[in-house]
Each structure stands twice: as structure tokens, then as C-alpha cells.
């Protein structure tokens, strides 16, 4: 179970509305390499892990991703909340506005809604952890593209840089967990025949 903490993991205070940036940043909310996909990927994969370290790391990183989901949602919300209808039209958000107003809806930058097809639970711990390593790299790359696109807005850049750094730490931890699982699966198995029973 989880307990909600009424605070952001990293502070966000965006002074100026800018729906154009929201339109691309929303991809890290509900896009293929976004935080919703990340949290669901890890929290779903943890059930099938063969060792304690891998279960723990998937559980704890999956939990941190939920905090990041809230951060990305906050950025999108603050960028769109007070936008005028003209600003929304100019940002190319008329279609989004038609279906969602300025609610924060999990979708990719290109407009397609969140799809669980972007996360795999393969029934194989090695395949799953390799997928997680790739997912962290893809999320890092996405944040770097967003950082390019948001270069003129310091209020947005600051939390994006923080989120990018977390992807790197998670990649490191998943690499260690993968090594642990590989070692465990490579252990020699001994079967003892107990004659007393």
C-alpha cells in the first residue's frame, strides 16, 4: 500500500503560462517512455522477480516514478491552467481542449492516449530488467529533447533537469539488480536425497 505525502519530490513553481510547452511535456505523463508507463512497468514486474534485491528495487523505483508522475502532471497543469483560448489555439491544443479542456490527460506528445502496450511483463526476469534499463535510457533521451525545447523557460528547465538525473540513477540501480539476478540464476543447484523420509 501507499501513503500520500502532500508535497512534491522537487519544487515546481512556473510563473508564466505556456501551453506550447505543455503540449510536448505531456508525453512524459502518458507517453511511451513517460512516468505512468514507468511506474506500471516496474510495479507490475516486481511480482515475478526471483530475488529480494530485484523485488525491492522494482518496488522502490516504481514508487518514486509515481512521485515523478505527479511532478510532470504539475508542470503541465501550471503551464495550461490560466491559458486563454487564443493561447490554446496558437499552441495547437484545440483538439486536446475539445476532449479534455485543461485537465491533465495521459497521452503522448503526438496525441495518442496512454497505451499499456508500451510496457512489457515478459515472464522472464532477465528480459524484464533489460527492458527496464532501456526504458530508463529512453526516458533520459526524452527529457533531453524536452530540455532542448524548453531552453528559454528556467522554471520548467529546473525540474526537467532533476527528472533527467533520476533516470540515470535508476539505470545504475537496475544494472546492479540485473547482475544480482544473473548471478542467482547461474548458481549451481544441488539436489539432496533425504533417506529419512
Amino acid at each position: 500500500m501507499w501513503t500520500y505525502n502532500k508535497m512534491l519530490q522537487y519544487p515546481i513553481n512556473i510563473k508564466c503560462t505556456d501551453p506550447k510547452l505543455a503540449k510536448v511535456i505531456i508525453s512524459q505523463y502518458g507517453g511511451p517512455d513517460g512516468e505512468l508507463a514507468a511506474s506500471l512497468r516496474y510495479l507490475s514486474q516486481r511480482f515475478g522477480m526471483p530475488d529480494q534485491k530485484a523485488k525491492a528495487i522494482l518496488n522502490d523505483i516504481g514508487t518514486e516514478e509515481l512521485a515523478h508522475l505527479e511532478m510532470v502532471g504539475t508542470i503541465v497543469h501550471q503551464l495550461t491552467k490560466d491559458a486563454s483560448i487564443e493561447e490554446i489555439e496558437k499552441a495547437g491544443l484545440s483538439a486536446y481542449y475539445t476532449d479534455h479542456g485543461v485537465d491533465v490527460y495521459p497521452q503522448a506528445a503526438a496525441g495518442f492516449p496512454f497505451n499499456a502496450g508500451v510496457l512489457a511483463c515478459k515472464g522472464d526476469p532477465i528480459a524484464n530488467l533489460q527492458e527496464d534499463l532501456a526504458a530508463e535510457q529512453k526516458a533520459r533521451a526524452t527529457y533531453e529533447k524536452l530540455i532542448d525545447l524548453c531552453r528559454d523557460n528556467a522554471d520548467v528547465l529546473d525540474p526537467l533537469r532533476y527528472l533527467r538525473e533520476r533516470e540515470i540513477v535508476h539505470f545504475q540501480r537496475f544494472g546492479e539488480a540485473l547482475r544480482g539476478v544473473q548471478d542467482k540464476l547461474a548458481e549451481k543447484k544441488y539436489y539432496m536425497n533425504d533417506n529419512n523420509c
Partner: protein
Amino acid sequence: MSIEENRNCGCNCMCNEEENTVDCDMRREMIQEIRCLEFGITELALYLDTHPEDEKALCLHRKYCKQVKDLKDKYQKVYGPLTINYPCNKWRWLEEPWPWERGNF
């Protein structure tokens, strides 16, 4: 003070009064310190998940956990609950701005 500045303050206090400005600053400082400690705890926890034998990390984790507990108790007594398992005489969960709102702490 302009409306914009007032909004950025974020708390429900009227920040054009000097005393409350000080209170706002103190609150912001306290929540930032809590956030720093929580970050340290998260980072250490992830590290300890894959390095459970590291005594130095474990010791630091223990230290930050104690510090954040004391600081959160102090903060919540004055500014209201950070989680729903903080006991109140009056339901203060609704009183403060939510983290996603502009001017949050």
C-alpha cells in the same frame, strides 16, 4: 505587493504583513529541508536495495530518517498535516494548497 507576488507566496496568509512574510520564509525553508532529507532517504534506500551490506550508507539512512521525523513533527504541528495519518483536533487536510497548485510549498 502585487497580486502576482501574493499568489507566489502560496500560503493562505496575507504576505503584505511583515510578520507573515517571515513565517512564509520559515515555512518554505522547513519544507525544503524536509524535501532534502526525503531525497537523501530515497536515494540511500535505492542504493541499499542493491548494496544492503554497506554500513556507511545504512548509518546515513538512519540519521536522515531520525532528522526528517523530528522535522516533520515540528512542521505538521504548525502548518498542518503532510499525510493523512497525522492526528488533528480539527480536519486541517483541506486547509493548505495542494502540491500541484502554483505557489505551493
